[in-house]
């Protein structure tokens, strides 16, 4: 019963986080300042998530290989590469480097 209570409570609260800003924004124009703040917050959140997912991935993979793969992926993305191209290129780099490091180590 406790597990259900926790799951439903966190779920309901999470839905409220997702729904309330949409509901409050109904028909209202935001200021340019608020719009900039939200965009900065969004970019910051994505960036922080990318770093934390890299860090989490390092527990089961080689950190140097992950870091280099991420840099290569960033370069491909900055040059206009699609999500699939970034993932494939970075994954190939990661797989190759991880294999080399594993063979050397």
């Amino acid at each position, binding site marked *: 019963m406790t597990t259900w209570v926790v*799951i439903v409570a966190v779920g309901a*609260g999470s839905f409220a986080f997702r729904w309330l*800003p949409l509901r409050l924004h109904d028909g209202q124009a935001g200021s340019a300042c608020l719009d900039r703040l939200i965009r900065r917050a969004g970019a910051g959140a994505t960036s922080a998530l990318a770093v934390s997912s890299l860090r989490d991935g390092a527990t089961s993979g080689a950190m140097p290989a992950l870091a280099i793969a991420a840099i290569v992926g960033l370069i491909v993305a900055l040059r206009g590469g699609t999500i699939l191209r970034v993932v494939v290129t970075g994954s190939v780099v990661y797989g190759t480097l991880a294999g080399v490091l594993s063979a050397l180590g």
Partner: protein
Amino acid sequence: MTAIVTEVDAPASCSPNEHLTEIRAGALAMAPFVVGYAPFALVIGAAVAAHGHPIAGWAGSWLIYGGSAHLAALRTIDDGGALLAILTGLLINARLLVYSASVAPHWQRQPRWFRAVGAALLIDPTWALAERRATQPGSDRAQRAYYLAAGLTLGVGWSALIAVGAVAGNIVSGVGLEVAAPLCLISLVAPRLKDGDTRAAAIVAALVSVVAARWPAGTGMLAAIAAGCAGAALVGRRST
């Protein structure tokens, strides 16, 4: 002058072919994320299986719809009790307020049912894809189709992988999928780095995320977001 990405004006309707194209595009755009998040989903599945109430634990894959909050809540129930587990899960998911506020201007012409369903599917990758899609031309219906296809691809894949993890345990560990999720996120933040303020926000947030790596219950993420906003504001003030 700071460049701000603006939403492209869009008509309300689209042709059936455009509709199918958008559905396919949304599903394909989300597919790499499903692959990337597979190891994490399997870990959560293992936690669900280890928990005393696996059905309730699995239900969080749709009800909570956020891996970090889901995993933290399950692990905290036994150690810290129900109240602490609820607070931990909610704190981790507090960033959803930012995501929702971010997509609100893009969805203001969308019907209410879509905003409710879209809200339920809002999480890191769906938010990022919604933001990117909003800057591309297309009707409101096209954007709806794209987002719903992406969201349902993630939702079905995510919950299925958690179920697999609950059944199969750690058999797929070591496959090397862990690099896919960060690459997906990098591909979504990279186009935003052309804008000076946003670039500052991303860099500062990334650095704070490293420093705050061991902070509890999602507070590191919130600190990173706040620091990113502060850094961008400082850069913006210096450039004017």
